[in-house]
């Protein structure tokens, strides 16, 4: 009888250790998971004197219980370009982790600087810099910065596709600041190439890579890669303004990335 009780206690202890280990493992995975960078392309060309309202959203798809499904983000932006070379924007970011409701995540002051006249040089260059203030005191504020490059091509390696193609590259570094900061320097690389059939319909392909730390000291296994098709277009209402859209589906290319991400962007802009 006594022996059976000891065996039962030992069995419970083993089960408890297993549960504790599993919780610890999940906690560690959560801590090492990279913060999701914005899944959108920043363009280096500024629309001088234009006011814009922009809505960016994305949602992820993966196996139920994987912790990578239904990760959602909604970002609302207001911007105006007072000079041809600078466009400041204010962003209001909301996010929902899997199984949770949307919560206010951050307020961001975003700046795009156009460094070259469009079409003057081999490529158009810009610079991006933003300061993001976390809504939660448990999170750190962040500074993100880096170059934006764009190239419009009438042919690729001598091959004329019948329409111009537009290629945009973002290389953005992030540093956390203040309390709770992590000293790693994540790098987000975004690439978009699209065919300019007409203003309404421009299909293309996009890649988004998130490297958790360029110093290689962080968890490289958490580096994420996404690749997929995108459709971009706009509808010009002339004096009433312009509506722009982007919708893309990204396939996760490695284990740390969810199987799929649907992203969209809707923008209204009006010149004043």
């Amino acid at each position, binding site marked *: 009888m006594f022996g059976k009780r000891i065996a039962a206690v030992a069995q419970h202890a083993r089960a408890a250790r297993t549960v504790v280990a599993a919780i610890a493992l999940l906690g560690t995975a959560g801590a090492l998971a990279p913060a999701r960078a914005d899944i959108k392309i920043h363009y280096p060309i500024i629309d001088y004197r234009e006011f814009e309202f922009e809505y960016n959203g994305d949602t992820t798809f993966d196996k139920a219980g994987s912790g990578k499904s239904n990760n959602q983000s909604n970002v609302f932006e207001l911007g105006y370009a007072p000079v041809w070379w600078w466009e400041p924007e204010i962003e209001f970011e909301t996010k929902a982790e899997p199984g949770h409701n949307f919560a206010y995540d951050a307020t961001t002051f975003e700046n795009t600087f156009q460094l070259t006249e469009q079409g003057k040089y081999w490529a158009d260059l810009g610079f991006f810099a933003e300061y993001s203030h976390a809504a939660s005191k448990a999170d750190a504020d962040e500074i993100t910065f880096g170059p934006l490059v764009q190239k419009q091509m009438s042919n690729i390696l001598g091959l004329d596709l019948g329409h*111009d193609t537009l290629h945009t590259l973002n290389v953005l570094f992030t540093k956390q600041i203040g309390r709770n900061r992590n000293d790693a320097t994540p790098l987000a690389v975004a690439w978009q190439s699209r065919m300019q059939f007409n203003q309404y319909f421009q299909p293309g392909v996009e890649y988004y890579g998130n490297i958790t730390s*360029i110093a290689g000291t962080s968890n490289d296994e958490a580096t994420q890669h996404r690749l997929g098709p995108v459709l971009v277009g706009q509808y010009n209402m002339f004096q009433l303004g312009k509506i722009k859209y982007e919708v893309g589906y990204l396939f996760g290319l490695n284990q740390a990335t969810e199987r799929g991400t649907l992203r969209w962007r809707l923008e209204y802009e009006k010149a004043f």
Partner: protein
Amino acid sequence: MNRLRILAGLAVLAGSWALAQPAAAEDSFTLSIKGKAFEPNELTVPAGQKITLTVKNLNTTPAEFESSDLNREKVVTGGNAITVFIGPLRPGSYEFFDDFSADTPHGRIIAK
């Protein structure tokens, strides 16, 4: 930290190289906005090479030279001029308009 330095160095090199590319000799053209019209309304330019287009706004109110076909959009304030860098263009017709004035007839650049 070494990877950071290498990446930063590569970014600077790439940017410098892109900016250092000599601009090929470019043909220049001029367009004026006067009243509710572009003058000329149709412009013929050479295909296959870069061109510079000077847009003069002879009005006192701002205008915006815009072309979805050319992927260009640029504001020109009243009494001033802007330079638009275009091309190389494949042969064809490219529409442009004043985005601030729906009444202004659209113009065309013909690349031959």
